[in-house]
């Protein structure tokens, strides 16, 4: 136990050393110059980035959770195979190809980027919703049926609260991936911070590259942290106790 703790400490210290070194280096070399010099453009790109992530993520949540609930109903069990495999298929295609395909149908622009990222976010949320609902103890469901809860009441009072942790974890994964992938939206004219990243790559200008990439990373960390808190708020206390 003690060695484990020591290793954890060493890793932590190393991690922060790297982070501090990186930021000292970037600031010393004036790497965030583009943000300071063209703050208006920066907020514009950041705004585009957030809009792409937010709308595609929201659509994915609105579609995959009900879909996950639907396929776990007894009468729809046979459809699970098809639906999960279709979502799987979406996931196996490289993100760049999904973007290209979406562009093929919807032309260049933000709309195509949103649709592509939406398709890309479906699977993690869908899978986690299904896994979460499936993991609810069968005896608990049996007891709920036996004492006279309607199927809807079982869903609302038992299945969803018990699956909440898993569902939120799915959303968290999807959004964090989504924020990174949204940088590619620039390639199909969707805007976002990818604009600076790709400019940086093309011009061999690290300042643009870092001014685009670091905010994307920070955004991902921020969203991840937000959902970590959401997990604590939304998961019933009894289940958090159960985990301990």
């Amino acid at each position, binding site marked *: 136990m003690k060695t484990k703790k020591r290793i954890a400490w060493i890793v932590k210290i190393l991690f922060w050393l790297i982070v501090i070194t990186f930021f000292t280096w970037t600031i010393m070399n004036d790497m965030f110059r583009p943000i300071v010099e063209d703050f208006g453009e920066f907020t514009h790109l950041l705004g585009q980035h957030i809009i792409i992530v937010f709308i595609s993520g929201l659509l994915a949540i609105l579609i995959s959770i009900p879909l996950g609930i639907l396929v776990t109903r007894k009468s729809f069990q046979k459809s699970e195979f098809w639906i999960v495999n279709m979502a799987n298929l979406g996931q196996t295609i490289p993100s760049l190809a999904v973007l290209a395909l979406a562009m093929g149908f919807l032309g260049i622009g933000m709309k195509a980027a949103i649709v592509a990222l939406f398709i890309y976010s479906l699977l993690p949320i869908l899978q986690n919703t299904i896994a979460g609902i499936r993991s609810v103890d069968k005896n608990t469901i049996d007891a709920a049926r036996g*004492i*006279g809860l309607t199927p809807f009441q079982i869903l609302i009072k038992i299945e969803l609260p018990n699956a909440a942790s898993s569902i939120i974890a799915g959303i968290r994964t999807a959004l964090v991936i989504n924020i990174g992938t949204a940088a590619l939206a620039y390639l199909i004219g969707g805007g976002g911070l990818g604009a600076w990243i790709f400019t940086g790559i093309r011009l061999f200008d690290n300042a643009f590259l870092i001014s685009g990439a670091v905010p994307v990373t920070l955004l991902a960390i921020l969203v991840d942290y937000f959902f970590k808190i959401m997990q604590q708020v939304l998961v*019933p206390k009894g289940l958090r106790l*159960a985990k301990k």
Partner: protein
Amino acid sequence: MLEFKNVSKIYNGNKKAVDHVNFNVDEGELVVLLGPSGCGKTTLLRMVNQLESITEGDIHLNNKSVKESNKIEMRRKIGYVIQSNGLFPNMTIEKNVMIVPDLLGWDRKKQLDRFNYLMELIGLHPDEYRKRYPHELSGGQQQRVGVARALAADPPVMLMDEPFGALDPIIRTKIQDEFLQIQKEIKKTILFVSHDIDEAVKMGDKIALFRDGQLQQYNHPFEILHRPANEFVSEFVGQDRVLKSTSLYSVKDLVDSVSLTGYQKAGSVQTVQEDTSLRIVISKLLNQEAEQLAVEDTKGKIKGILTLDLVEKFLYKQIKETPKRTG
């Protein structure tokens, strides 16, 4: 109260899980559905509250077919306890216990009173456990809460599927005793699934013994033990069935039937209470803890001396002279 009429359950067109079962349960009776695993006892239980459909025949609850009743409404009027307690981990103990009254729309005050009453009944302090969660409780406590939840809306009928089966022997015995006390007070009509003959003899007013979906014998534990209807029943209750039957009697039954040897104040004699099970008495006498025991009534007055000979005489009388009882 509860009538099984030619009930059958057939899976996939051929496998008969329950095979033409007929019997009646009177109001306030605790009937144990007994048998080896796979004999259809649980299936039969679950057909009552329609968790399993009935293939043939019918079950009548209060002269009404369960097939024709509204499933949801009916289930709310039937207490249901399962082996793995089935408590909802996301809800507090109070929410768990009060879920059916809540669905039925009881007001807050009535729910509160009922919760307090039930928790006292199962021997857990209401305020201490109200806001706690199932995972914070021990297995025995969880099972007690499971019983309280089944009783919440004061249903006339209760279905219990091996309710104490997952508990260790010491806790199980304790909860069985507690539950018998509770049953004395609440007098529910209960179907109780078990695979344990000792539990069945202890808990049941009557026992329904099953094999391969067929009812083998339905009668008082005494009859099952002393007059097994066939080879299977006799084998199932075991060759020590006379010993098992001793847990049906208390010292008081013996005192009422045969006269005790007179008691003289000489030396120290171990005493037993009148409500002690005869099985414990025999065990004490055989264990050489004492060759004789003094019987004490509830006021602490000694009534006489009990010896193995007397127990033997009593059992002989019970087995040979008791008229045959039928369901």
